[in-house]
């Protein structure tokens, strides 16, 4: 059980910051209304509307021992990698697959956040000679902080919900290397039918979700610019 809590935690630690940062970077890069950029946004967002089951099944093929990713590696002279069968790599691989599925979602949330930054502030900074990076650091980032917090909470909760990915790609294995809490609940409660034990695990997961949410909301007090909020 401690091992499974640790795996769940590691999954979140890998997945959430990566997806928050990538979403922010994509949103800033694509925050323009030209046709090309709207098309690029749509392409990045496409995996979000696809079912996680379909995404997992496609990626199970991509990461298969003789699959296309290893074939590409061999073409450039690298040796193939046992993505999902190596206990040291499987969790990272799963994180990567979940990340590619979710980055577009994070991007769209940040795009909405960027629209709330008043353009006259950015104009004024430009007139005062601020570089793009400076105005991003000093204006944009503090102003969208409440949204960043919300995105972090949403993605943290999403990371606790990881199920289809595990069920379809690794079944929690190899060993228990990718058994996260949500999958463990399913395994113990609905496959082994030890419902009491599964419910106890569920309570642990619930307390974790609740604590993180409360902590993050509390962090808002000193972390977030006190504007109108959301």
């Amino acid at each position: 059980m401690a091992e499974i809590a640790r795996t769940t935690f590691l999954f979140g630690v890998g997945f959430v910051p990566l997806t928050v940062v990538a979403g922010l970077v994509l949103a800033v890069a694509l925050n323009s209304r030209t046709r090309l950029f709207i098309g690029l946004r749509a392409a990045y967002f496409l995996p979000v509307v696809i079912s996680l089951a379909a995404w997992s099944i496609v990626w199970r093929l991509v990461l298969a021992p003789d699959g296309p990713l290893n074939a590409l590696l061999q073409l450039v002279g690298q040796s193939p990698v046992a993505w999902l069968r190596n206990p040291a790599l499987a969790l990272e691989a799963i994180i990567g697959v979940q990340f590619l599925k979710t980055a577009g979602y994070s991007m769209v949330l940040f795009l909405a956040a960027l629209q709330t930054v008043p353009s006259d502030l950015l104009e004024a900074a430009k007139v005062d000679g601020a570089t793009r990076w400076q105005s991003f650091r000093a204006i944009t980032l503090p102003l969208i902080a409440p949204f960043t917090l919300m995105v972090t909470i949403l993605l943290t909760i999403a990371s606790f919900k990881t199920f289809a990915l595990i069920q379809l790609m690794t079944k929690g294995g190899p060993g228990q290397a990718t058994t996260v809490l949500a999958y463990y609940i399913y395994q113990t409660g609905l496959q082994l039918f030890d419902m009491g034990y599964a419910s106890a695990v569920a309570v642990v997961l619930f307390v974790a979700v609740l604590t993180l949410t409360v902590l993050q909301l509390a962090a808002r007090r000193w972390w977030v610019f006190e504007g109108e909020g959301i």
Partner: protein
Amino acid sequence: MTSASARVTLIAMLVVGLVPVLLPLVWMISTSLKPEFDVFAYPPQIIPARLRPQNYADVFSQAPFARQYFSSLYLGFADVVGTAIVALLAGYALARLRFPGRGLVLPLLLSALLLPSEILIVPQYALFSNLGLIGTQVPLVLEPVFGAPAIVGTFLMRQFFLSLPRELEDAGRVDGLGGLGVFLRIALPLSGPALATLAIMTFLANWNAYLEPLVFTSGRPELITLPVALNEFTNFDGTPQYSLQMAATTLSILPVALVFLLAQRHIVAGIARSGLKG
């Protein structure tokens, strides 16, 4: 670096970043058209050397795939209708009606959203099992219509009704409409765009749901929905039949991808809104 070349660099980077997002989907379509024997051919064939479009026919003959597809469709519509009814009525009540405990209802409902469905699945299974509904499709309608998706919907509709000018409804009252009349004749007809967003979001969530159909139908082939069905194409030893899985997966993604291209703005706005304000 001039700003034009910076722009070209940016676009190049953004296009390269798309490779791991889109190439797997290209590979999916490519594999769906190959004979199973060629799936792992080396060097990899992005354009199949031998075409086998019968994979798409086999998908329907080897499994009750048509039935599973139809299940996903009608369960989706049932959920849209049920969720819309709950969200419209509850959302309107929370936006406009005064009743004791009104201030408590919304925080209570929203705190229920903190409970991921993965946590609730075991007690829900026990509940539906006691009702004798495991191994049927009934829970797949009951759970979303009275669960988290309806709460998100209720919240969306409440926000929408709050944004409607009260004067419209007051005018209706002056003209002699009662509470129900105001709702049915004035508020409801104006809610079209919000309702469209809600319908698309609900349908999409339902089309993509995996855990609930897997658990509540007991995995019975004639009851499961598409996301669960995709994994059913296996050899006798349980290993995946990749070409058939990819054909089935392509068929399951197709309508979603089409609707996404057509209603992209609705979908993106809906997901951003229900995420950020939920």
